[in-house]
C-alpha cells in the first residue's frame, strides 16, 4: 500500500479518540472508554471478565485462545468467565449514533473559540462558515442505530463450596451446567451427552428450546425466527476421531472441505464467532448466513496469509537470502571436517543444557 493510499484511508473511516480536539479532552476520554483496547473500535458485543475489564467478545475470545489471562491485568481467566455487558452495549449504541453530531459541534465550538475578536471581517468569515455547515452536516450523517434493549438479566455465577455428586457444575468446555457425577461422560462425549439425569433420552435442540421458552417466556417477539441461538460447546478435538470432527461440522451445516486441521480450525472459529454473536442483544445479532460469510472471509484471509512466503523466483530468493545461506554453509563446514563446534545450538541435548547458562535457544 502506498503512503498516499494509506493517508487517504486514514482520513476516511478510521475513527479514534484523537478525532476530538485537545480542548475537549473529556470527550476523548469518553470515546476511549467505549473502545476495546484490543481492536481499538467501539465495543462490539462487549463482555466483562471477572476482573471487570471489558473487551469485544470476539477480541477477548481470540486472546484467551492464545493465553488464558486478562489482556489488561493478566489475571487468569477462561471462556466461562465471559459475561455479556448489555449496559455498556447500550451506552456504545447511544454514543455511536450521537458521536458524529457531538464531534461536529465540538469542532465548530473550537473554531469559534479560536476565531479573532468579533470584527466585520470575522463576521464575514463566520457567515462563510455558516454557509459551509450544511455541507459538513450532510457528510456526517449519523448512522441509524436503534438503542439496544437492556433487560439487565446478566447471569451471575454462584460460588459453590461443597460439590455434591448431584450438584450442577459448569462444564469447562461448553460452560453448560452439568451434574458433577456426569461431567466426565459429558466431556468425553464432546459435550453432547444429556446435561441432567432426568434428561436421559436425548432431546433435539429444538425441543429443548421449546421447553425452556415455556419456562422463561420473557419476550415473545423475535423468537419466531428459526435461528436456534444456543451456545455451541467447544470440542476436545484431540480425543475425537476424524469422522467425529467431520460430524461436528455437519451438525453446524459447515463445509467439510480440507483436511482434519482445516476442519478443526473451521469449527473452532465457528464456535468463537457464534458464541461471540450471542453476547450481543438479540436485535443486534448477525444472522446465521452473515456468520457463515464471516467465517468464509476469515478462511480466505487466513489462507492468503499462509501463502505469502511462497518463493516466486528461486534466483531472487537466493540473492535476497545469500547472507543467511553463507552463514549456514560456514556453520556446516567444520562439522564436515569432523570437528563438532563446541557451542552447537542445534542438538536438542545441547539446547537443554544451554538453557541453564544462557538465555536463548534457537528453534530450528
Amino acid at each position, binding site marked *: *500500500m*502506498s*503512503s498516499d493510499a*494509506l493517508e487517504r*484511508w*486514514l482520513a476516511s473511516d*478510521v475513527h*479514534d*479518540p*484523537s478525532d476530538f480536539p485537545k480542548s475537549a479532552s473529556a470527550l476523548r476520554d469518553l470515546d476511549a472508554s467505549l473502545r476495546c*483496547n*484490543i*481492536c*481499538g*473500535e467501539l465495543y462490539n458485543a462487549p463482555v466483562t471478565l471477572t476482573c471487570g475489564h471489558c473487551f469485544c467478545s470476539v*477480541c477477548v475470545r*481470540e*486472546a484467551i485462545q*492464545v*493465553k488464558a489471562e486478562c*489482556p*489488561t491485568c*493478566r489475571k487468569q481467566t477462561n471462556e466461562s468467565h465471559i459475561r455479556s455487558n448489555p449496559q455498556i452495549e447500550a451506552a456504545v449504541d447511544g454514543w455511536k449514533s450521537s458521536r458524529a453530531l457531538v464531534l461536529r459541534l465540538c469542532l465548530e465550538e473550537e473554531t469559534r473559540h479560536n476565531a479573532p475578536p468579533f470584527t466585520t471581517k470575522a463576521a464575514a468569515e463566520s457567515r462563510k462558515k455558516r454557509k459551509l455547515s450544511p455541507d459538513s452536516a450532510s457528510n456526517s450523517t449519523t448512522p441509524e442505530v436503534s438503542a439496544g434493549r437492556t433487560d439487565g438479566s446478566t447471569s451471575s455465577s454462584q460460588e459453590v463450596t461443597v460439590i455434591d455428586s448431584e450438584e450442577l457444575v459448569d462444564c469447562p468446555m461448553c460452560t453448560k451446567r452439568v451434574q458433577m457425577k456426569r461431567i466426565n461422560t459429558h466431556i468425553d462425549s464432546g459435550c453432547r451427552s444429556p446435561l441432567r439425569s432426568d434428561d436421559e433420552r436425548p432431546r433435539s435442540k429444538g425441543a429443548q428450546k421449546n421447553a425452556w421458552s415455556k419456562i422463561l417466556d420473557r419476550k415473545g417477539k423475535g423468537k419466531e425466527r428459526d435461528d436456534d441461538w444456543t451456545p455451541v460447546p467447544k470440542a476436545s478435538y484431540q480425543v475425537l476421531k476424524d469422522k467425529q470432527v467431520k460430524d461436528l461440522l455437519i451438525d453446524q451445516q459447515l463445509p467439510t472441505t480440507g483436511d482434519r486441521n482445516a476442519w478443526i480450525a473451521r469449527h473452532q472459529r465457528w464456535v468463537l464467532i457464534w458464541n461471540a454473536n450471542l453476547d450481543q442483544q438479540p436485535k443486534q445479532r448477525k444472522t446465521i448466513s452473515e456468520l457463515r460469510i464471516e467465517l468464509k472471509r476469515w478462511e480466505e*484471509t487466513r489462507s492468503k*496469509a499462509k501463502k505469502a512466503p511462497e518463493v516466486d523466483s528461486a534466483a531472487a530468493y537466493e540473492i535476497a537470502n545469500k547472507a*543467511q545461506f553463507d*552463514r549456514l554453509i560456514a*556453520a556446516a563446514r567444520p562439522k564436515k571436517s569432523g570437528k563438532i563446534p563446541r*557451542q552447537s*545450538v*542445534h542438538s536438542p541435548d545441547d539446547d537443554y543444557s*544451554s*538453557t541453564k*547458562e*544462557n*538465555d*536463548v*535457544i*534457537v*528453534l530450528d
Partner: protein
Amino acid sequence: MAAIASRRLAKELKEIHTQGCPVGIQLLSADNFEEWHLSLEVMGESQYQGEVFALKFRFESQYPISAPAVQFIVNERYTSPVHPHVYSNGHICASILGNEWSPVLSVIGVCVTLQSMLASCKKKERPPDNDRYVRHAPDNPKQTRFHYHDDTV
C-alpha cells in the same frame, strides 16, 4: 493482512500523527502495515546519553493478538545499544515481546518499555552468550525462544 490488524495499526498511526510520540521517540517511517521504523533516545541521565537508536517493527496478520517482531536496526547509521538484554544483531530479549505480550499493548507502549529498559541499565555490556547467539540467530527474532531470567534491568 487481516482487516483488524490494519485498522488497529491505522488507529495507532493516527494517534501518533495527532498526539505526537512521547519524548525521545520519533516515527521514522510507516509506509505500510507490515513494517514501521521508530527512533529511540533515552532522555535524562543514563548510560546512553546522546545515543539515538532505531527500532524495526514487523507486524503479522494476527496483530495485535500476536506480538510484533521488534528489533534494533543495525546498519551504517544505527547500532544496537550495548545492553545485557540486547544482542549485537539488534535482537532483544524482553518478555513483553514474547510470552508476556498482551494485545492491549501498542507500538508506542513497546517503545516506552524499551526506553525504560535502557534507562535503568547500570552497566553497558552485551549478553553473555552474544557471539554464540548472533552466529545462529534467525532473521526474525520471534523465532527465537528467549529465556527471561532477569527482571532487574
